[in-house]
């Protein structure tokens, strides 16, 4: 299947999580914090810490480590606090 990361087409397969796709591609951070604007990526990997938040199909605050990719997903980085578009 194909997904898009920040506008770029990326190959993915069923069963991969968003974090799995991004880390396999060498992307290590995909969010900045609300306060200091610091970079964050995966931390706990099992859905507990909410550090790996990412925007999927216009919806922010999706845990990249838990969300399984679907064909055509539009995945984008998230900066600070974002509202759904």
């Amino acid at each position, binding site marked *: 299947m194909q997904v898009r990361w920040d506008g770029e087409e990326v190959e993915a*397969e*069923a*069963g*991969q*999580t968003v*974090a*799995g796709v991004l*880390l*396999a591609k060498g992307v*290590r*951070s995909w969010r900045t*914090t*609300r*306060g*200091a604007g*610091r*970079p*964050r*990526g*995966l*931390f*706990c*990997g*099992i*859905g*507990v*810490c*909410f*550090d790996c*938040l990412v925007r*999927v199909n216009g*919806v922010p*605050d*999706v*845990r990249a*480590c*838990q*969300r*399984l990719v*679907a064909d055509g997903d539009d995945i984008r980085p998230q900066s600070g606090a974002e509202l*759904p578009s």
Partner: protein
Amino acid sequence: MSRVVVVGGGPAGMAAARAAAACGVGVVLVDSGRKLGGQYLRQDGLASEDRFSPAAAFADRESAPSAALAGFEASRSAALREATLSAASRRFALPDNVEHVADASVWAVEAVDGGHRVHVRVGATDDPSRTGRVFATRALVLATGAYDRALPFPGWDLPGVFTAGAAQALAKGQGVAVGDRVLVGGTGPFLLPVAASLVGAGARVVGVAEANAAVTGWLRRPAGALAGWSKSGELARYAGVLARHRVPYRSRTAVVAAHGSECVESVTVARLDRGWNPVPGTRRRVEADAVAVGFGFTPQLELAVAARCAIVDGFVAVDAAQGTSVRGVFAAGELTGIGGADLADAEGEVAGTAAAKLLGAEAEPPLRAMGRVRSGRRFAEALAAAYPVRSGWQEWLRDDTVVCRCEEVTRRALYRAIDERDVGSVRSLRLVSGAGLGLCQGRVCGQNVAELAGIDDPAAFARRPIAAPLRMSELAEVVSESESINAEAGGTPLGVEY
């Protein structure tokens, strides 16, 4: 007869569901994963057929010297594939009277007349399209498991610092190593399989830093309550993998800082004294692009706390039938103490049987499982005693070290809240400092912040009436329950004592 509701699809939850179903009652098994197994029996996220068919079969044929041999290799790999798939499907198969609700996030447990109501959102992770379901039950089994404890240190909020569980989940579930040069640190035997998985996923593990005494001590002198494990060969196998790949293993050592601007570029390791204070003059820089740390495990207590179950020393207190202090609520697995998959499986069997009996099913006390629980608990206690977290970790922090990752609260801000605002309780500490108020709901920082503040209660931050973050539209949705509780129905306790 009504049904048993089990929350959690790891070893404990699966065993509870099977045991209750075997007594003839219906079961609803609610789990956050797409597939059963939980964090320990992690089923590969990637489709298993991809793993066996095209690539593997082609590789066999190309390397085979003759067509006949190619045919033999192909049929052998087909047989192997068949065998592996059927072993896996048996391991994760559930009886027909178990309804497995996957991709389900439990966001509240509510006490109602005669039992409890379990509120769930089902569907793609954190997506507004999730649908609501409510399961009411007179017999609730909580098997929500545990997650890695991470201790803070300067730079631990940089991308490239992971929990050991994250490194394991990515390596085993997604086939990805979290870095090229990875340092594994923390305490306990779990660090070994994590390091071995990283090696398997293609990473170079530049070292394993154990803050306590060496795990490998058991391998040479297997004795006492921890002996069973080393005899099983599991630890020896991991230690063998690490030895073959020349991975240095150092005891009384920890990662005390990570460095880099946007990502981890190097780390500082230091020798520790028995209280985990860094020994002066032993700091050493190590080049690494990732760190995986785990300091034991923290139980997922919020549903048990919401059900008002008694918590003792940070774990759910249970009786010999895995019953909690609340009638109709049972707990199994890491919630009751960190003891691994075998103990969780045994506790699950006891809990499932007791839950079915409470609904009126005919059931004999599962004596064999109860025996396994008793020996498993001895192992768990020995494990906890051998791999404690010592307070010297607080010396690794600096004033500007983030202690709460979600709300970016530094140690300086935390101490200022405590000193200047005269904070006395956990509730006021959260409100004044902001620590524990973020999306993780204090799961990551809670125990650490409590220790820094001198609050002697590991479960101080586990009160989470909304047990998982959800969107306002989801909270506003009215969901009716699929089956209501008959508070008058019969049933008896399992009737066992230690």
